[in-house]
């Protein structure tokens, strides 16, 4: 019954790489005519929005600097951490925040101010959110729907198989209870 193909973290990262991000190129080139839309033109020192996968590719070739997204700053993440602490629910985070951050840490850490502080802040946020997830997971019995508003795709994916199989099992056992009183004896 778990024969469904699972979604892997790399696949979710693949989706995140479609996201656009600003770079500051060090080269000059006319716009790239991609199937998924035109990107560019490129002039030295002129910020331009490109898909993340291209940004990483150019950065690896030392042809640009990446401008970290506005949320990848100490100030923003501090406020999010506070929000996460103050509430029982999940704070709203930017789409694909974990994947984008992971890619930038890996390939463009020199473009991020205070990169170590930011890493720590993100790790704290993740820990907090993870413990909320676990807490939520301890009361699945008798629950038909679990709302997980603002949980990211990556976060839900890491717990998906366990979560889904547990819910499936509870449902099956509940059906079992009904079947045990169905017939007249």
């Amino acid at each position, binding site marked *: 019954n778990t024969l469904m193909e699972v979604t*892997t973290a*790399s*696949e979710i*990262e*693949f989706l995140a790489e479609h996201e656009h991000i600003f770079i500051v190129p060090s080269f000059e080139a006319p716009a790239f005519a991609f199937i998924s839309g035109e990107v560019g033109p490129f002039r030295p020192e002129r910020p331009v929005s490109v898909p993340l996968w291209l940004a990483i*590719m150019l950065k690896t070739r030392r042809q640009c600097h990446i401008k970290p997204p506005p949320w990848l700053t100490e100030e923003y993440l501090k406020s999010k951490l506070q929000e996460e602490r103050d509430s029982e629910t999940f704070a709203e985070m930017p789409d694909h925040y974990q994947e984008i951050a992971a890619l930038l840490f890996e390939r463009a850490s020199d473009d991020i101010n205070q990169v170590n502080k930011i890493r720590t802040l993100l790790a704290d946020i993740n820990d907090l959110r993870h413990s909320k997830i676990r807490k939520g997971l301890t009361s699945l019995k008798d629950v038909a729907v679990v709302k997980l508003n603002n949980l990211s795709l990556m976060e839900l994916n890491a717990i998906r198989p366990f979560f889904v199989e547990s819910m499936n099992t509870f449902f099956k056992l509940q059906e079992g209870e009904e079947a045990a009183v169905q017939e007249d004896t």
Partner: protein
Amino acid sequence: SLSLSSVSNMYGELGIEILRDLKRCEPPLLPPFQDDKMRKIIQEIDGLYNEVRKTFETHKDEIATPEVSGSLVVHHASIQRNKRCMLAYISERMKRLQALRWDAGSVLPPNIRDNVGAHERDFFSDYNKLLNKYMQYVGLDLTADLKPPKELYVEVRCLKEFGEIELENGTVVLQKDSQHFLRRSDVEHLIRQGVLEHIV
């Protein structure tokens, strides 16, 4: 015909044996096809079926009684049980053969080839043809790119003597322990076959 006192005390036990045998071996590997036991299960079914027919003949007027219908129910269920075990066995093996086509390509790995039954070899070949035909229609090799592409070129180390391969920009000699920087799409299948190792 089957003499009841000569069989083990329960029907359907061989079916359980072949399933346990299969379960002990982790997919996508395959244990040897249990030809002999399959044949014996079919004999058991024939015996049960004869028994059912005999019961119908000799107890024509008592079919509705618990004494006779209870017997028919159990014999009939035993046939179905044996059939289910065999079908589950063949289906699971079919699934693994298909997985092998996706995993290791159109040639069965040598450690598996000998364990495959004659009909299974036919099935594997049919499935291979079918999948190739479909991939030709859609113009894409679906068994490539099992993971999302990260880069066009990958660093690889050669794990065994393999000889020359022909690539777009010339030939490359794959000697044991040699390292290369090659187009991902050119070497993915060699990595999967264990000829090359992807260095991250």
